[in-house]
């Protein structure tokens, strides 16, 4: 209990009669980098706004170090936010923007000046103190926004899709810098994004959300390697998700062929979802492997080829370092370890699963 800094306890929120969050529980540990990941409308931003105090939940409680802060306004919470649109004050210089929170706290001029210098150095913007936000690029503005938030030494830094407006190259650069900043300042980060790659790169723990419900929680690796339902598998990375029938322990029937796998404990002849990552499929000569199909497209992606193989009704996605001929008949094979078997959800609510502690 000691290291839990923030706890959401059965939080609910709806807008205009539409349920956004439903009995949402979440614990965030001190110094953790937690990412809320999900498609737009999944409730991740609302969760962040509830933590920040910008929205009041309809039901449930927000506990900060064990104390109920549900009805505290944003200015009375020891959290700071980095907004997607930067939201720098256009009438103030970079230094004045960063000083904003500290001046309200009536810190000494010396303290404020030191903090500004430290924060600007941290985000690699040391020579920009006197510039106006309008004269900065998007990436630079976001650096200032991060500096403006962390000088206040919040217990938790909330980041609402902070890199969403930046181009790909800059986004990768900022991802690395955010990790560096996180290490340097040692505060808890709660990060919201719909970009699964961003989440996998940066987070200690990922919370995959859909329709206001947690679909899965875990480390990047556990979520990528062992998605617990079809939604997570589909959302995190590319996946082949295909219907299968569990013939017995360690044997699943896919497209009429029995394929060995490593999963046990399913019912005999139970209908399941089978998840196979494109990079785990191997193209072999026709007649070999489990699946026989025709190459229908091939796209060069730099490090690999993305190849589509049509077999019956299903189009398999395969990543391979070797090219293939369009129209050629090939076989597909896979190692038992790389097959992920999941129960079919019975209903929407049945999709809810949580990582076993």
């Amino acid at each position, binding site marked *: 209990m000691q290291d839990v800094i923030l706890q959401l306890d059965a939080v609910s929120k709806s807008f205009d009669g539409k349920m956004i969050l439903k009995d949402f529980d979440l614990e965030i540990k001190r110094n953790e980098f937690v990412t809320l990941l999900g498609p737009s409308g999944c409730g991740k931003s609302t969760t962040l706004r509830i933590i*920040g*105090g*910008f929205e009041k939940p309809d039901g449930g409680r927000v506990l900060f170090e064990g104390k109920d802060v549900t009805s505290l*306004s*944003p*200015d009375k919470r020891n*959290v*700071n*936010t980095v*907004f997607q*649109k930067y*939201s*720098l*004050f*256009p*009438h103030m210089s970079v230094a004045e923007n960063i000083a*904003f*929170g500290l001046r*309200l*706290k009536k810190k000494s001029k010396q303290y404020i000046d030191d903090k500004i210098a430290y924060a600007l150095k941290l985000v690699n913007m040391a020579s920009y103190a006197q510039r*106006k936000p*309008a004269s900065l690029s998007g990436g630079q503005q976001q650096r200032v926004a991060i500096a*403006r*938030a962390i000088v*206040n030494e919040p217990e938790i830094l909330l980041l609402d899709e902070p890199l969403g407006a930046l181009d790909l190259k800059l986004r990768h650069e900022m991802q690395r810098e955010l990790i560096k900043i996180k290490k340097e300042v040692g505060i808890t980060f709660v990060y919201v994004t719909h970009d699964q790659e961003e989440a996998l790169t940066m987070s200690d723990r990922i919370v995959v959300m859909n329709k206001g419900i947690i679909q899965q929680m875990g480390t990047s690796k556990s979520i990528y390697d062992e998605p617990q339902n079809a939604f997570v598998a589909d959302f995190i990375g590319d996946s082949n998700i295909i219907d299968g029938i569990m013939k017995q322990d360690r044997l699943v029937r896919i497209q009429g062929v029995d394929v060995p796998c490593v999963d046990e404990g399913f019912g005999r002849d139970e209908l399941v979802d089978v998840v196979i990552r494109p990079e785990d499929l191997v193209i072999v000569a026709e007649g070999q492997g489990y699946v026989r199909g025709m190459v229908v497209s091939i796209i060069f992606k730099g490090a690999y080829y993305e190849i589509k193989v049509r077999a019956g009704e299903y189009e398999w996605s395969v990543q391979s370092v070797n090219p293939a001929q369009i129209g050629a008949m090939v076989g597909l094979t896979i190692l038992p370890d790389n097959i992920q078997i999941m129960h079919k959800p019975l209903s929407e609510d049945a999709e809810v699963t949580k990582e076993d502690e």
Partner: protein
Amino acid sequence: MNEGKTMKKRPWLATPYAVWVAGFTMIPLLVIFQYALTSREGAFTLANVMAIFEPVHLKALLFSLEIAVGCTIICILLSYPLVMAMRRLNMGRQGFTLFILILPMWMNFILRILAWQLILSNNGILNFILQKAGLLPLSLANTGTAIMIGVIYDYLPYMVLPIFNAVAEIDEDLVEAARDLGANSLTVFCKVILPLSVPGLLSGIVMVFVPSMTSFVIADVLGGGKLQLIGNVIEQEFTKSANWNMGSGLSVSLMLFVLISMAFTTKNETEGKSSSIW
């Protein structure tokens, strides 16, 4: 569509306006200057322009200044709370509030002023209500207060509209960012809303200060002819005294005075954004 063609400047489109300005602004202005700088006999003189420093004119000018500054300040004090309240409303309600605000402008100007005369006169509607409520009647008729009420009533929309436009443009994210950094509602207003609405505020000041400084009809009706604004003095030079030279001279002085006051206001303007008037 050829983009180059559509982007081409077309100065000749401004011709109707240019003709209008030349015929009805520039030429009359030159005529006024000519009258102002000549005596009745046609000789060059600065006497008409300098006549503003005569005590009776100076008194009218100072009274005008008092009315204009007071009206401007009260309009600002009335506008900001209204605008802040409107900011929270949805689009439909905002539109309705603006509609209510400008509704009086659809009625004849003289009629509106005469209505105020009726309300404020000693046996008027206001005193009737005060007496019914068991309170002492006020004698507001023909006072500076009556004139002040008249100009505020008339020019308030010109202050609210530009300030509303400026405040409505401020992104809600900025307000949330300020809240996030520890600002309470008052601090958000002082540090974010107010500085970012300065361009609108300056437009409002220009649009309220100048006409209230130069008005004469409102003072005529609500001041009962006893209290003279500089506008009334000028009007009387043209009508009663038929001294166009003196009237023009005082007009030119007033124009200079307004220009100097406005230059003083715009000096404080924030860099980058300029108000829409200047």
